[in-house]
C-alpha cells in the first residue's frame, strides 16, 4: 500500500461522494452516510476526513452557487479525483484478493 492509505471511514466518505456525484456537499454526504451505514456522523468528524482526503489528493472541491437557504452560505461540492479513484480501486482489489484467498471451509466452523 502506498503512503496515502485509505482508512475505513475515509473509504466510506469517498464512496459516498462518488455516489452522490453532482450533489456531494457537507450535509448531503453526512445524511447519505447516516442513511446507508446506519451510524451517526458528526459534522466535525466528516469535515476532518474531507479535509484530509483533499490534502491527500483523493478529493477535490469547488464552491457552488449562493442559495437562499443555508443563511446565504455557499456549498462546497466534492468530487473524487482520478487518483482517488485509483486508491479506491486499490482498496477494493486488496480486499478482493483477500476474499479470494480465503479457503472455502474457513467460515464453516
Amino acid at each position, binding site marked *: 500500500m502506498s503512503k496515502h492509505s485509505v482508512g475505513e471511514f475515509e473509504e466510506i466518505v469517498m464512496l459516498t461522494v462518488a455516489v452522490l456525484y453532482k450533489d456531494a*456537499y*457537507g*450535509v448531503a454526504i*453526512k445524511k447519505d452516510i447516516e442513511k446507508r451505514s446506519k451510524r451517526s456522523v*458528526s*459534522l*466535525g*468528524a466528516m*469535515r*476532518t476526513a474531507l*479535509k*484530509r482526503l483533499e490534502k491527500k489528493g483523493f478529493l477535490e472541491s469547488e*464552491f457552488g452557487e449562493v442559495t437562499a*437557504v*443555508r*443563511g446565504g*452560505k*455557499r*456549498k*462546497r461540492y466534492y468530487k473524487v479525483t482520478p487518483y482517488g479513484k485509483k486508491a479506491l480501486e486499490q482498496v477494493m482489489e486488496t480486499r478482493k484478493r483477500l476474499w479470494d484467498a480465503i479457503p472455502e471451509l474457513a467460515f464453516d466452523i
Partner: protein
Amino acid sequence: MIRFFRWFCDPDIVEDLEGDLTELYEERARKNIALAKTLFIRDLLLLFRPGVIRNFKGLKNLNYYPMFRNYWISAWRNLMKYKSFSVINIFSLTIGMVACMVIFLFVKDERSFDAFHEKRDKIYRLCEVQSFPGTNTQNVALSMPGMGPTMAAEFPEIEAFTRFWGFGEQLLELDDKKITIDQVVAADTNFFEIFDYQLLLGEKGEVIDQPLNAVLSEEVAMKLFNKIEAVNETFILDGQQYIITGIMENVPENSHLQFDIMLSIGSATSSRPNFDSQFGSNFLNTYFVLNEGADLNSMSERYPEYLASKMDRDDINDIYKLFLQPLKEVHLASTDIEHDYNNYRKFNGTYIGVFILVGIFILIIASLNFMNLTTARAGNRAKEVGVRKTIGAVKGQLFNQFILESILLAGLALIFAIALGFIALPFLNSLIDRQLGMMNILGDPTIIGLIVGLTIALGILAGIYPSLYLSSFKPVVVLKGFRSFEKKSIFRSSLVVVQFSLALAMIISTLVVLQQLTYMKNKDVGFNKDHILLLDMNQQAQEKYDELKQALLNESNVLGVTGSGQRLGNNFHQWGFKARVDTGVVNLTPSNVHVDPDYLDVYGIKLVAGRTFSQEYTTDDGLAFIINEAFAKELGYDNPIGQKVGHGWYPNDSLGTIIGVTEDFNFNSLHYKVNTLSMVYHSEWGFSEMSVKINGENIPQALKDIERVYAEFVTDYPISYQFLDEHFEELYKSDEQMGSVITIIAGLSIFIGCMGLFGLASISIQRRIKEVGIRKVMGASTRELMVILSKNFAIMILLSFVVASPLTFLFLSGWLENFAFRVAMNPLIFLVGGVLAMIIALATISFHVIRAANANPVKSLQYE
C-alpha cells in the same frame, strides 16, 4: 456562539461549514426549535477539533528562542558589568521580600488560631460587660455556671453549650509519685464534640461523661505512665481517684484554650447539685454553638429579660450585659477583655493590620528603589537601545526585553530572599517568641504559586516605567552621545520622596513606640517590682505559710516576704463592698485583694493617710480595709479613715473600718486606668502566692537559698516561681513584639532607602562631574561644591519630612489611645526623626559627594 465558531474555524472552510450548520439547523428547526438549538451548539462544539481549528498566525514558523537567549545574555552581562548596582538593586528587593515573607508568616500564624475547629464559624464565647457600682466598666470573658445550661434551654438559636473551667496547676498522685501538671481543666461532656481536639483513644461524646473521668494529653500520659495507651489507668487528684477514659493529641500551639488534663465537669460538680442553676459569681468560660442564621442582635434583645428571670436584683441589667464573641475573634480581638484567663498567647489583632501595612510599605520602598535605580541607569543602556533599534528592533520588543530583565532580577531577588529567610527566621523566632518556619511557605503549592506570581507582577510593575522609558529612546539622539538628552527627572525625585516619606514615618513611629515601651518599663507604678520572686503556694505550702515565711526571712539574701491572694499586673477580682454613708449603706464593687499585713511594706506601696495592717490589732483580721485614692474619691468621704465599710456579705451592723489610704498604684497593666481598690487581711484564708523580695546583688545565691528552704518545708510539691518583672513583661508582650517588628522594619526601610539613594547619588553626581570640574576651575572650594551637590538630596528629604509627619502623627495618636498611661507626643521626636534621616541620607551620599568634590578637574574636563 457562531462568532466563536467563526473565530476558531479555519478560514478556508468556514463558509461552507457554517452553511452546513445552518442547513442542518433549519431542517431540525422545522420539527423542534429548542432541540435544534441545542443540537446546533453540540455540533458546533464538536467542531472544535484539530483539522477544523484555524492555524494561529502568531505561532507560525517564528522561533523566539534565539532572541530570548540574546536578551538573557545581555541582561546577564549588564548585571556583571555593573556589579555594585546589581547588588544594590537585587539586595534591596531581597530585603523587602524577606520582610514581607516574615510578616506573612507571622500573620498567618496568628490567623491560624482556632482555625482547626470544624464548627469555628458557629462557636461563640459568652462574655459579660460588667458595670458594678464604684468600679470601672469592664469586659469580662468569664460567665456563671448556670448560664450555659439555662441559656441553651431558653434560646432556640443555641444548639449546644460547653463550659470550660480552669483549675491551673494541680498535683497528681500516682502510686507514690507526685507530679504537678500545669493545666488541669474541666469541661462538659460534649466538649470534644464542639471543639476538634483530636482524641487518640476514646470516643468524642463519651470520654468525660461521668464524674471522675479524665482525658490526658499524649505528653502527660507519657510522663505519668510512660505509654500512650493509658486508658483505664487511675490517678489521685485532690483526694479523689480519677479514671482515664481517653487520650488526646497534645493541644496545638495555635489554640486559645490550652490544657494538659481534661476532667469531666461532673467531677467538680457532683458535690454541688445546684451547679447548673448557679448564678452570681463568674468563674468559668462558656461556649455556645449557634445554629445557622442565628441573629446575634435579636438574641441580645432578649438577654435583659433572661438575666432578670435568673437573678433577683433590680439593677441586674444595669450591672450585667451579655454578649457573644465569635471564636475567631477570641485570639485577636480580646485586648479589651479582662479576666481572660484561658486565652493563650492573646494578641492585639490591630497590630496585625499594622504589620501588613508595614510589610506593604517596605515592599513599596524596595520596588521604588528598583524602579529608580533601573531608570537612573538607563544611560548605560542607551547605546544598546540605540543599536538594537538601528538593526531593526521595534519598541514593543525592547519593552519586552526590559520587562523580562526586570522579572529576572525580581526572580533572583526572590531566590536570595528565600535563602535569607531560612537564615534569619531562627533569630527572629527567638526575638518574637514564635515558631515560624519557612516550610509554611514552601510546603504549600498555592502559596508558592502566589509568591511566584507576585514576584512576576512585581517585576512587571517595577519594570514598566523603566522599560517604557528605555524603549522610547530615539536611536539618533542616543547614539550621538547620550549625555545631552538627560534632563532632571521629577518623576525620579518624587519616587525618592515617597520612599523617604515611608522610611521617615517608620523611623518616627519607632521612636515613639520605643518611648512608650520604655515609659511603661520605667514608669513609677507605685510599688517596687524589681527583684521580687513570686512563689506559687500549693496546699502544703499554704499550711506551712508562717513557718516558711519565718525561715525565708532568716536568710540573709531575703529582704522581705509577704503573701497575697492575687498577682499584681492583672485586674484584681471584684467583690461586693459595703460602705456606710449619711443616707445609709451603699453597695459598691471595687477590685479586691487579700494580702499579708506586711504587703505594703514589702512592695513599698506608699500610704497617703492612715496606717498599714498590723498584727497588734485583732480587728485587722478581716475588719480593717486599706483603700486606694481612686476608691476614696469614689466613696466621697471627707476623711475616709475610720469610716465603716465591709465586704458585701457582712451584715450592716458589723462592718469593719477603713484604716488607710494608699497612693494609686498600677496593679493592673498600664493599658488600663487605676481601678478602685480595697485591700484586706484574713488570717484564715491562706495565700495563693508568696512574694519574696531578694537582694538584687546576689540573685543566684538568693534563689539557691529560697529553693533550699522551700524544700525543707514543702516536700510534696516542686518549687515553681516567676520574677514579677518577667510577669510584667508578659503583659506587654504584644506591644513589645510590635515594637521590635517596627524597629526592624524601620531599620530595613531606611537601609533600603539609603541603598537606593547611594546608587542614585552616584549616577546623578557622575552626570554633573563636568559641572563640578568647571566650578572647581572657576575657584569653588571643596566645601561649596559639597553643599551644591548635596542640596538636591537635602530638599528631597525635607519634602519627605513634610509629607510624612502629619500622617505619622495621626497614626501614632491612634496607637497611643490603647494605653491609659501614655507618653505625650513630643514634636521634638519628629524633629529628631527628620534630622536622623537627613544625617543618614547625607552620610550615604557623602561618599560620592566628597569623591566628586575632591576630584581633579583636569580628569573630568580633559576630553572636552
